[in-house]
């Protein structure tokens, strides 16, 4: 009898707190979005699952002695996001950007979303109950970088408590890029601008592709050492792929290694989706600001492209500016799609890949600025 009581007292049903139940629903919602809606499933499926596992009462899977507690070490040390960034580097082709380097400026402009939402977070402090520190605001702003590993890396350093919400916002909005960007792109461009055809790109030699990651790293070393963990691992992956002499390492970095780390990273991020940290009014602020960041980044990219089109000797379709937020390759595809609506013979995909990968560099640079100036 006593035993039965103790059994009943050890069930999840008996021990559930409202917060845990709610967070578990959030986890299941993420699984639904990942599986049924196709929202960045590679990340949101393990994140959602991690959220479910870490909110199970009694089991303590995210507490000392539990699996997710140990896995989280890979985020605390920065190892997981950096290894993923290495794999992403190995998958990235800088060819289109090297053929038309001025598109890098579009990747710069789109980072305005980061700093605007940082300011927005600070402004939200006027709402009673909201208290974002400068570190919190910086970690929230980085959602606007539209780059998962960068956002997780920065958040784990500046605001580990907000990590769960920030990662979820970053990946969700990346999945929503095809919904968020088009109205902004249409509002800021004229039909004629959207019809602009761009010149065919020159081929880029292998030597340029090998030298570029080293040059990028060198510039970051000289100007912004705080960005070098991110940019360094990205450049390493890119170099391994471009140089052609370590293909077996490059293949492993892009496949098995990134897959293993993705599972671990997702589960660990999910373990930060605890009721304690997530069920705060702050989370609503983060979700709102993340959307704002994406919108402002998109707009800045498009406007910058319009400016550049005016001063450039070769035509630039302003739509490709939107790809500057990164969210590779989704944002480039969106630019291509909107372009085709106005001009069915106008394939912008390759032209948009330049600003798209430039956006990855841009947000890593912005991350370096935040890590170095926000103390």
């Amino acid at each position, binding site marked *: 009898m006593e035993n039965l009581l103790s059994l009943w007292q050890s069930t999840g049903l008996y021990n559930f707190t409202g917060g845990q139940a709610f967070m578990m629903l959030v986890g299941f919602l993420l699984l639904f979005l990942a599986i049924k809606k196709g929202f960045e499933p590679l990340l949101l499926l393990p994140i959602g699952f991690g959220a479910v596992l870490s909110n199970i009462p009694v089991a303590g899977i995210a507490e000392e002695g539990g699996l997710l507690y140990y896995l989280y070490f890979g985020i605390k040390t920065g190892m997981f996001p950096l290894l993923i960034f290495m794999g992403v580097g190995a998958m990235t082709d800088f060819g289109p950007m*090297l053929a038309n380097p001025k598109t*890098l400026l579009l990747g710069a402009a789109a980072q305005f979303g980061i*700093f605007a939402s940082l300011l927005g977070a600070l402004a939200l402090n006027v709402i009673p109950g909201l208290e974002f520190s400068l570190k919190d605001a910086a970690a929230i702003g980085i959602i606007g970088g539209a780059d998962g590993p960068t956002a997780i890396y920065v958040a784990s350093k500046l605001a580990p408590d907000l990590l769960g919400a920030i990662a979820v916002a970053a990946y969700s909005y990346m999945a929503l890029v095809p919904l968020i960007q088009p109205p902004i792109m249409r509002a800021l461009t004229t039909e004629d601008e959207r019809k602009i055809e761009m010149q065919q790109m020159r081929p880029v030699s292998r030597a340029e592709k090998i030298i570029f990651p080293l040059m990028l790293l060198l510039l970051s070393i000289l100007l912004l050492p705080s960005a070098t963990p991110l940019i360094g691992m990205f450049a390493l992956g890119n170099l391994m792929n471009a*140089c*052609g*002499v370590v*293909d077996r390492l490059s*293949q492993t970095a892009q*496949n098995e290694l990134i897959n293993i780390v993705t599972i671990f990273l997702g589960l660990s991020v999910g373990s930060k989706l605890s009721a304690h940290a997530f069920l705060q009014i702050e989370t609503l602020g983060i979700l709102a600001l993340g959307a704002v960041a994406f919108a402002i980044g998109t707009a800045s990219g498009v406007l910058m492209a319009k400016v550049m089109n005016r001063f450039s000797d070769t035509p630039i379709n302003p739509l490709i500016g939107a790809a500057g937020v990164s969210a590779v390759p989704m944002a480039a595809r969106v630019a291509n799609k909107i372009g085709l609506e106005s001009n069915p013979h106008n394939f912008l995909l390759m032209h948009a890949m330049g600003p798209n990968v430039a956006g990855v560099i841009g947000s890593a640079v912005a991350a370096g600025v935040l890590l170095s100036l926000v103390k």
Partner: protein
Amino acid sequence: MTEMMSNGVELMFAGMGIVFLFLTMLVGAINLMSSLVQRFFPDMPVMGAIPTVSSGIDKSIIAAIAAAIHQHRHKHK
């Protein structure tokens, strides 16, 4: 405006400044690099091995393919 807010504004200017500075310098560096490469190594021979079938595919897979082809050839005759 609170002090934090003014910090934020300062951060925004510093941040966007550095981002543009960095990427503008990168544009310059790329242009310089590309022109140097194109001038001095116009037909630069591909370095290392030609990245044909990557070494990531282990020999057993190649063997499997070869075996499949071989078998096919015989059946096909």
